[in-house]
Structures are given as structure tokens and as C-alpha cells.
């Protein structure tokens, strides 16, 4: 039978689709045609596969080979189809077993020497294969550990095309080859250590806001003069967040795999921390690319923290692209031939100076920034964006008195804080069981205020109601204060927020304006 069929995976964003790779051998002059919307790298498989097959020791027949990647309308990119193409061609030539290759999903790029090279995005690709009901995948040896992170899938790691062909019943003489090592090694080497929360001196308000942000999943805005410890605070946030649950760990690891970063020996269990520089473009934040759509910083921060230091220095267009993911938790990137959707359920922390010189509002500073300049500076963080941030706190510089005070009693350590956060999150999860939400910040406003739900009612919210009446806060702001109040109650171990919690929540949201 001259037609052989196997399977591979095409990734669009994080979503993978199974692609059937068919090869037909026809009695024609030698040629190699790949059809089914390949991109440039994939079309080059033509040359890679033929040379690799010869050099590996299992040459392809000198006839015309037509390779079809179906569904033909789905755009496919990259070099990960090489192995599937080569094996389908060898099966069409009758060298390896049709039945054997039909059962297995193949991923991997071929080098001209016939060795298999690791490819990016193995984890999401294997995950897609598993979800589509395939239980065996063949991947380059360097990717085998990563592929094995997907439960319930048998992973066959192979070093070369020849080894793959022999495993599929090809009668060749085995050759010893050295497997291509993975590009970047190390166990999560680039995860920042973060430092301990106890290092933060003074600033109880800000530490409380940080704790609240961690417990409820709220976004956080830190405003204060340079040197007040805003960056220090923000970098401590991932440390006090609980470990990722298995689904989130798989998603975070998939994004990491897609970004071409090392996964090490296990899934990522700690929340990621992304701090893009303020020269980042909108595409760097959300992701982009014309053919291969790559995740940006906001996607990589999913289930973790996206920290924008010196936020007013970011172009306002860049800040405003974050509004959609803040609302929906996903980022969709539209291209002419495909739409890629990425998860982007990150916790946003932004830090800003009060004015360009940074001295405004600080005792003893000689800030000369005119009011208009100050306003313009902070106005770069747009109202709609600020409205989505539950906690907005002023971080003052520590005074000598404050330093003396904290010198005797060490502050909250990261370990203690994380325990409190985990306890508060457990309470919230218990309350929200049976709903799609896990943290207080995720609760939608109308649901929150719905009959018999979580609106504390009565006189508890009298200050908040008055603030809404006066136009001090928006309806969205009202909902957000309520959510923060629930988080504060959870941290305190209260069954429902009291008047104090609501007042505190209102202060944490509007503290900057006061």
C-alpha cells in the first residue's frame, strides 16, 4: 500500500489540534511535495527529511513523495512535523510498519545527520494528543522528560530517525548516536528567589495590602516615592502565594514550554513572576508574531504576578492592552489565518512614583514638578485600568522612628504570610464551592450582590453606600470594595465582613486619594 498515515500536533497558541500526516509514494520522477498550508520552516522539511533519512541510514525511495497534512485548511508551522513526515514516507515505501506508526503521535525536528532535535511546546502538544485520545507519543530524547509530565501517556524518547524507524519495525542495523541535548538545562533556573517578606521594614499598610492581594487574588497599585520599597514589596508577592493546583501547574508549565524555556524535572508549582521593562511594546506584553504566535509577558504571568514597575513610563497603549485580559482572563491574538487564545489570569501589581522627580508628598523634598506635570504623569495610568485595581496604597518612605520600631519586632515572614494566605484562600474556596470561581477577586459583582448571597447588607456598608452616592466610587468600584472586604474577613477568620472590614477595604482602594 503506497499511502501511509501517522499523526502529529499543530499548536495555535496553547491549543493543539491533531494533524494527520499522509504520505503517498507514486512511480514518478524523484520529488518531494508537502501540501496542507505549511509555513516556511515546515516547507523546508522537504530538504531536511530527505537528507536526514540518507544520513541516518534509512534512505527514502527515489520516487515522488507527496505529503499531505490534514486538515489542510489549518495553518501549521515549525519543524516539529519532521519526524512524522519522515516516518510516513518510510512507511509508504514499505520500510516500516503502517499499523505501528498509525497508533503513535510523532513530534520532533530532524537534523541533517538524522538525529532528532528538541522542539518548543512539547508539553501543550502532548497534552493535546492525550486529550484527543492518543496514548502513545514519540518525541526527541531531549524532550522525553517534559512529555512525561502529562499523565496517562506513554512517552517514547528516541535519539535519531533510525532508532524511531527500528522501533516501528524497520529492518535496519542499529547505530549508536549521541542524543541532541536540550537547549537550556537546569531546574527552573530563572525563577527569581524573591527574598523574604521579613526584609521589608515598616510599611505595615503596604504589607497588609500585599497580604490581602495574595489572599483574595486582588490587583495592587503601589504609589510612593523612590526608595520606599515598592519593588521590594512586589517581588515578595509570588513568595506568599500558595502553590499552584495541578491544572494551573500544567497550564503554567505549558506556557513555559511554548516560550522555549526549560522545564526541568517537574511541573512548575510556584506561581510565575514577570516584570517587563517599561520599554516593552504591546506585542511583548500580550504576545504576537505573524506565523508562530508567541505568548507575551502577561501570558507568561498567568496564575502568577505581572509586575509593572514605573508604570507611568509605559506607553499608555501598552497599559491599556491589559484591560481585556484583566476582565476576561484570556488574551486572544487575531491573525489573518488563525486566532490564538492564551490564558492570562494574572495578578497585576503596578508601582509608580507620585511625579516625574519622585519627590512629591515627601517631607523635606524639594519637588518642583508643576501640578499639570504631576497630573499628566499619573494620568498615563488610565482611569479604566485603575478602576480594575482593588487595592491602591500609598507606600511612604520609612522614617527613623519607624525603623527603630521595627528593629525590635521582626516583621511577618514569607512562610507565616503564606500560611495565612493559604488559610484565607481555603475559607474563600469553601464558600465559593459549586461556583466556577476560586478567589474573592474572581466573583462577579452581580452574583456577589445577588439575593441571599454575599452582600453583608444592613448597616455594614453604610460608608460604602454613601461613597457610591457621592460619586466617589463607581459601581464596579463598589463591587471591588465588597470583594476586598470579604478577603479581609477571611484573613481575620470572621464569618462575614463587618463594618470595619468594609471601611478598611474602602481605605485600601481609595487610600491614595485621601
Amino acid at each position, binding site marked *: 500500500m503506497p499511502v501511509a498515515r501517522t499523526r502529529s500536533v499543530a499548536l495555535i497558541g496553547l491549543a493543539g489540534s491533531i494533524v494527520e500526516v499522509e504520505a503517498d509514494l507514486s*512511480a*514518478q*520522477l*524523484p520529488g518531494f511535495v508537502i501540501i496542507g498550508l505549511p509555513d516556511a520552516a515546515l516547507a523546508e522539511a522537504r530538504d531536511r527529511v530527505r537528507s536526514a533519512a540518507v544520513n541516518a541510514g534509512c534512505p527514502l525511495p*527515489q*520516487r515522488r513523495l507527496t505529503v499531505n497534512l490534514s486538515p489542510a485548511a489549518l495553518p501549521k508551522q515549525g519543524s516539529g512535523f519532521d519526524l512524522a513526515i519522515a516516518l510516513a514516507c518510510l512507511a509508504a515505501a514499505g520500510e516500516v510498519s503502517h499499523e505501528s506508526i498509525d497508533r503513535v503521535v510523532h513530534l520532533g525536528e530532524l537534523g541533517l545527520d538524522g538525529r532528532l532535535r528538541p522542539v518548543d511546546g512539547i508539553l501543550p502538544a502532548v497534552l493535546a494528543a492525550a486529550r484527543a485520545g492518543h496514548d502513545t507519543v514519540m518525541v526527541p530524547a531531549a524532550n522525553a522528560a517534559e512529555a512525561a509530565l502529562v499523565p496517562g501517556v506513554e512517552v517514547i524518547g528516541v535519539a535519531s530517525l533510525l532508532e524511531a524507524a527500528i522501533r516501528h519495525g524497520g529492518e535496519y542495523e542499529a547505530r549508536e548516536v549521541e542524543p541532541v541535548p536540550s537547549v537550556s538545562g537546569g531546574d527552573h533556573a530563572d525563577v527569581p528567589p524573591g527574598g523574604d517578606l521579613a526584609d521589608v521594614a515598616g510599611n505595615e499598610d503596604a504589607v497588609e495590602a500585599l497580604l490581602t492581594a495574595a489572599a483574595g487574588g486582588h490587583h495592587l497599585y503601589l504609589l510612593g516615592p523612590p526608595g520606599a520599597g515598592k519593588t521590594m514589596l512586589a517581588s515578595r508577592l509570588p513568595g506568599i502565594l500558595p502553590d499552584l493546583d495541578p491544572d494551573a501547574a500544567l497550564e503554567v508549565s505549558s506556557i513555559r514550554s511554548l516560550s522555549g524555556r526549560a522545564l526541568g524535572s517537574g511541573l512548575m508549582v510556584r506561581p510565575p513572576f514577570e516584570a517587563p521593562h517599561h520599554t516593552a511594546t504591546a506585542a511583548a506584553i500580550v504576545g504576537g508574531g505573524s506565523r508562530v504566535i508567541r505568548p507575551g509577558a502577561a501570558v507568561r504571568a498567568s496564575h502568577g504576578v505581572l509586575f509593572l514597575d514605573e508604570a507611568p513610563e509605559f506607553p499608555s497603549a501598552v497599559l491599556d492592552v491589559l484591560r481585556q485580559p484583566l476582565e476576561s482572563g484570556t488574551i486572544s491574538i487575531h491573525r489573518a489565518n488563525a486566532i490564538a487564545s492564551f490564558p492570562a489570569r494574572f495578578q497585576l501589581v503596578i508601582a509608580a512614583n507620585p511625579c516625574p522627580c519622585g519627590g512629591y508628598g515627601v517631607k523635606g523634598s524639594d519637588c518642583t514638578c508643576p501640578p499639570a506635570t504631576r497630573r499628566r504623569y499619573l494620568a498615563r495610568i488610565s482611569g479604566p485600568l485603575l478602576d480594575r485595581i482593588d487595592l491602591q496604597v500609598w507606600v511612604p518612605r520609612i522614617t527613623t522612628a519607624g525603623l527603630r520600631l521595627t528593629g525590635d519586632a521582626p516583621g511577618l515572614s514569607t512562610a507565616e504570610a503564606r500560611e495565612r494566605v493559604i488559610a484565607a484562600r481555603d475559607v474563600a474556596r469553601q464558600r465559593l464551592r459549586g461556583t466556577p470561581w476560586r478567589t474573592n477577586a474572581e466573583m462577579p459583582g452581580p452574583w456577589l450582590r445577588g439575593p441571599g448571597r454575599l452582600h453583608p447588607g444592613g448597616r455594614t456598608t453604610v460608608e460604602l453606600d454613601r461613597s457610591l452616592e457621592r460619586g466617589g466610587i463607581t459601581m464596579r468600584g463598589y463591587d471591588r470594595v465588597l470583594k476586598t472586604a470579604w478577603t479581609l474577613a477571611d484573613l481575620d477568620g470572621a464569618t462575614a465582613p463587618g463594618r470595619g472590614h468594609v471601611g478598611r477595604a474602602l481605605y485600601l482602594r481609595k487610600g491614595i486619594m485621601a
Partner: protein
Amino acid sequence: MAHNAELGRRGEQLAVDHLEARGMQVVDRNWRCRLGEIDIVARDGGDTVFVEVKTRTSHDYGHPFEAITPIKLARLRRLAIAWCEATDAPVSRIRIDAVAVLAPAEAPALIEHLEGIS
């Protein structure tokens, strides 16, 4: 050059033997016109077959079929038409075949035959 020409002639003779063994009648060999040369013209039932023969002693410079490029194939088609115009015999269907002869010095020759290359 002399070696190559001799090798070519030997290959063509092997190809003719192969075609005749398959029941085809060779009607013309090394037919030339200003466009070039047709190695073999043969009849296979009702078909008039134009055969391009490529001979090699080894695979060092690639498979013989790889030497038949799209340009050479296009010239072969024009040659076929020129042959049809020049002949008196009736021609109904035409076909272009390729025969690869691998003739190493100390081993029996290996012949591969592709029918109806396009």
C-alpha cells in the same frame, strides 16, 4: 567523454533489452533534430512511448532519475511532438517513460523503469 559516451550506449542497449523483454517494440533510437535527441522510441500496444535513459555507475552523484529535471522533461515533450510531426506512421497516444540504469563496473546492472512520467 569517451568513457561517458560509451557508458551511455551500453545503458541504452540494456534499456532496449529491458523494453523488448517487456513486450515493447523499439521503432527508433537516438533520433535527433535541432531540439535535441530522443534515446528510444517504442510502441507499447497502442501507445507510442518516448524513453529517456539515464545511466550511472554509482549513486555518488545522486540517483539517475534525479538528473531528469523539469527543464529536460519539457524538452522531451517538445521532442516527442517533433518526432510525431516527422513520422509517417499513425500516432494515437503518446507516453514518456524514464529508464534508470545503474551499471557498476563489477556487478550486474540494475534497471528501473518509470512509466508515464509527467
